[in-house]
């Protein structure tokens, strides 16, 4: 078996017992990137020298009998909105931070390094994590490994594609309205958004501070659990990270949840859902039922259209504040021509930001402005509470909630770029979860007739990741999706 076909858990085992070296694993990853990334464009930056040096160091330490950590020698990719102080830029997919070098590592990057991982590069994203297709990157889109004419989803499209195309077994992404789960679904991989506060946001470039969370991509649930365990936990530098012990997510992973009650919201199966997606998801639900789970019809009245509306008021409002710092003063792009200070800000930001970012800053500025604050922002926060109450009521009755992650499989590049609202509706099933702070995961559950992946989303209550991962493992076994390599890998072979 090629090293790139091994799971992260298998790699760790083989590297630790000497059957493989970290250098071999790194070289296999770098070779796959060289072979495939010309087509896929998952990466904005690949750290050849750094990864090789690091892999050699891991091998040296292993040979000396050291325990290098739970991710020993595993090649990992990091979404380019997380700070890396290793010589690689952190661009956030934006011209305003093109070639910006972070002066410190993000907390999650420190954790990867502490656990012996080998960071091979930074992945492509929608600019400042704003988007559902990775087409808003200032540096070109990423292509879906299952069909290069289609999007990988977004905003963490690069990380999703890198894992799907087997360039790396695991990667980090960030999720604010669905930006891990939706690309996971479109790329046929596992992607999880932990409970808000579970993983430190220190060093994650802020988009919406009350929604953003970092989470894992992997080809299977066990690897996702491995990466979550390595990166979760309290960090004093992020005042929104919680002081809660991190369970060993792997130890009981294969233990099914007895008498599992699965809530199936009618709102997640309404108009706009592609029939093939629905068929695959319902088949997986049926398989869970056949294995002893109970399906319970539930209603989440505010979780779809109203959640999108709430999300597209709350997140741009927070973004308008978070992105105010990109003004050409301390770092990043500064407009060459300007007359006054304010003029410098205005031209710097006009030149440095793409259209979607500008749209969202303006939306947020408007929603927070005098005369509109009550009607938009304050109203949205009230509906946010209603969304939270919908989930509280549901979780009193059921252990988890399941439905499709995305209403459609991967759409074509360019198909939705003329219609921002159509693009926003990609998040119809994923936006409610971050608003309520709860955890969610997307697990592959099948393919459409034309070979495009379909994802099933599982939602669980706050800090219930251990059980959520066990349930995800149950779905993984029940759905029994064949372990196929995507076409882009076969074409290159």
């Amino acid at each position: 078996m090629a090293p790139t076909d091994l799971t992260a858990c298998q790699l760790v085992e083989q590297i630790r017992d000497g059957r493989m070296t970290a250098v071999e694993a790194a070289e296999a990853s770098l070779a796959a990137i060289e072979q495939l990334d010309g087509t896929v464009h998952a990466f904005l930056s690949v750290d050849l020298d750094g990864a090789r040096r690091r892999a050699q160091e891991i091998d040296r330490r292993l040979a000396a009998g050291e325990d290098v950590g739970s991710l020993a020698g595993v090649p990992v990719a990091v979404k380019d909105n997380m700070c890396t102080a290793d010589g690689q830029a952190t661009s956030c997919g934006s011209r305003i931070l093109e070639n910006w070098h972070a002066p410190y590592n993000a907390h999650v990057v420190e954790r990867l390094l502490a656990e012996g991982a080998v960071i091979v590069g930074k992945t492509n994203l929608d600019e400042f994590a704003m988007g559902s297709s990775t087409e808003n990157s200032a540096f070109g889109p990423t292509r879906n490994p299952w069909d290069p004419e289609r999007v990988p989803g977004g905003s963490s499209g690069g990380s999703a594609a890198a894992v799907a195309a087997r360039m790396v077994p695991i990667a980090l992404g960030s999720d604010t309205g669905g930006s891990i789960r939706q690309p996971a679904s479109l790329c046929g991989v596992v992607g999880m958004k932990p409970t808000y506060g579970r993983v430190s946001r220190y060093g994650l470039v802020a988009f919406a501070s009350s929604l953003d969370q970092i989470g894992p991509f992997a080809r299977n649930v066990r690897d996702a659990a491995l990466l979550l365990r390595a990166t979760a936990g309290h960090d004093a530098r992020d005042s929104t990270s919680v002081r809660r012990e991190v369970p060993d997510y792997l130890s009981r992973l294969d233990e099914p949840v007895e008498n599992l009650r699965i809530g199936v919201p009618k709102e997640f199966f309404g108009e706009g859902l592609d029939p093939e997606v629905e068929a695959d998801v319902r088949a997986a639900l049926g398989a869970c039922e056949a294995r002893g789970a109970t399906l319970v019809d539930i209603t989440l009245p505010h979780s779809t259209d109203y959640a999108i509306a709430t999300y597209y008021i709350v997140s741009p409002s927070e973004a308008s504040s978070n992105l105010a710092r990109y003004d050409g003063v301390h770092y990043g792009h500064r407009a060459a021509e300007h007359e006054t200070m304010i003029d410098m800000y205005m031209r710097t930001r006009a030149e440095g930001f793409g259209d979607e970012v500008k749209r969202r800053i303006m939306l947020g500025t408007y929603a927070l402005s005098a005369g509109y604050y009550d009607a938009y922002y304050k109203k949205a926060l009230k509906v946010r509470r209603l969304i939270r109450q919908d989930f509280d009521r549901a979780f009193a009755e059921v252990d988890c909630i399941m439905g499709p992650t995305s209403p459609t499989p991967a759409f074509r590049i360019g198909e939705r770029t003329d219609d921002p609202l159509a693009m926003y509706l990609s998040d119809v099933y994923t936006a409610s979860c971050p608003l309520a702070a709860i955890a969610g995961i997307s697990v592959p559950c099948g393919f459409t007739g034309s070979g495009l992946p379909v994802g099933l989303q599982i939602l669980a209550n706050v800090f219930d990741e251990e059980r959520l991962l066990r349930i995800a493992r149950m779905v993984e076994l029940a759905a029994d999706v064949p372990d196929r390599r995507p076409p882009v890998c076969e074409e290159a072979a």
Partner: protein
Amino acid sequence: MALSRDEVLKVGTLGRIHLSDDEVGAFATQLSSILDYVGKLSELDTEGVEPLAHALDVHNVLRPDEPHESLPTDLALAEAPDRAGRFFRVPRVLDEGASA
């Protein structure tokens, strides 16, 4: 609810983003349609509902008032678009003739 060109320009100024004439027109159309959509929240009765700004029950997280190491000056200035010694150089902020 259609956004006028003036309103778009005003929002652009508030958000410190210079907009070309073409952009003002395009954004007016797009933002109007988005605002129409998000305006559907007015269909919901939220009488007596408290706003939820932060979904976790975490408040006023403080640390002891002890000095810690901060980012060293050189690192902080390393990516400056324009640096003068220990300072970030920026365009004039005060008007000519303003008293100290």
